[in-house]
């Protein structure tokens, strides 16, 4: 009985995930937005601060900040759509009847995660190459990207569910997500800086980042049913 419930839950989450990607591949809205945004910002940053524009010592301080700002704004441009288009096309009501809230949330979160992962996989190598930034500790950098990216996806999913039911969705997402993401960004920038420069103490920051991810996940799972169902 319990195992059947678990399997239907997983099937629901997987169905939501698959549906998101099917919709996305049909219009390629988020993918195009993310790619274009990434490309533009990368060109701007690289042209003005490239290998010649900034010294290596300054670079390891400034470049992690820019990397996370690009990631923040790219995800703010692409991720909220997951819930906004459900309300706009009036499919939200059907989804409310069909899916368990937690399964729906996890499906949407998995979609957001793959999107952020794709973005990071595309952006980071290009960024490092364009800035000719040497990485002292590649594992720590990957951990920072994974934990930070997860936090961005999880926070965005809940905030997107909130703003999808309000007016002025685009601006409201930026306004609401900024204070929520602030600790995440500070931690991620710190960790990335440590990975680039090879400073000690990265472990503590990573633990705090993972704690942030866990808290946001637990809070989102608790709050999502109230946000989603009237």
């Amino acid at each position, binding site marked *: 009985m319990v195992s059947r419930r678990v399997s239907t839950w997983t099937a629901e989450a997987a169905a939501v995930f698959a549906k998101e990607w099917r919709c996305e591949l049909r219009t390629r809205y988020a993918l195009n937005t993310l790619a274009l945004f990434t490309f533009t910002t990368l060109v701007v940053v690289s042209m003005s601060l490239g290998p010649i524009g900034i010294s290596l010592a300054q670079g390891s301080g400034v470049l992690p900040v820019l990397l996370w700002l690009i990631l923040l704004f790219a995800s703010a441009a692409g991720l909220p759509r997951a819930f906004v288009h459900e309300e706009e096309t009036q499919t939200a009501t059907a989804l409310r009847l069909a899916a368990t809230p937690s399964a729906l949330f996890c499906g949407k979160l998995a979609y957001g995660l793959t999107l952020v992962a794709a973005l990071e996989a595309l952006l980071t190598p290009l960024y490092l190459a364009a800035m000719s930034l040497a990485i002292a500790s590649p594992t720590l950098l990957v951990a920072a990207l994974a934990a930070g990216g997860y936090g961005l996806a999880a926070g965005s999913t809940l905030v997107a569910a909130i703003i999808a039911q309000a007016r002025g969705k685009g601006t409201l997402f930026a306004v609401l997500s900024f*204070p*929520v993401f602030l600790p995440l960004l500070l931690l991620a920038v*710190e960790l990335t800086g440590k990975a680039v420069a090879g400073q000690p103490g990265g472990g503590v920051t990573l633990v705090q980042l993972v704690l942030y991810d866990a808290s946001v996940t637990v809070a989102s799972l608790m709050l999502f049913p109230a946000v989603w169902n009237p």
Partner: protein
Amino acid sequence: MESLKDTLAWLLWLWICAVVLGAFYYAPLAIGFIGQSSRILFFHVPMAWTAFVAFIAAGVSSLRYLFGGRDARHDRAAAAAVELGLVFGVLATISGALWARIMWGAYWNWDPRQTSIVIALVFYGAYLALRDAIDDGERRARLAAAYAVLGLVVTPFFFFVLPRITYSLHPESVVNTRFKVDMEPRMLQVLLAGSAGFTALFFWMLNLRSRLQARQEIAERRELERG
């Protein structure tokens, strides 16, 4: 009952007047502070404390709204607490900035406490922006409460990060030995009395604001029913 409340209101007025007079004539000047500048702390610290109390009250009301039966009273209390918390927070920020100009030579220098209050003001400003963007009362209450709780979950992480990236100029940290261990007893008395008085004032204002809001909502509903 109502006459008791009247008496309490007058007692609170007397209390606050006593705090004001105490701040200027009873408490001595703090050593190491320029001129009379330490007197602003008798208003600055209680205001910051009250803003903190208000934001906690808003969080508790939001939790009670979401998980305690969706009573519209809790939603009104949360919204009113946020509004009042913003007022007290802005006053604490202004009084702190004035004092910082005198003591540290600059209105603003991103000390951890200054950073935290700015983040709090931005967060609760966003909360009010969210409320403004939703017309339906039940939906507004639900989403705003969820956002407030999300904020409560995220804020503790600032306590990890901020001390590492900024360093504190605040008296409690810098002149710790003098300020915390043997703060002048008369100063401490005025500070505590002020905090208690402002907190009582906050709860009175919170009560009035939520009741007034309830009356407005009922009046609007009646208007709609009449057509």
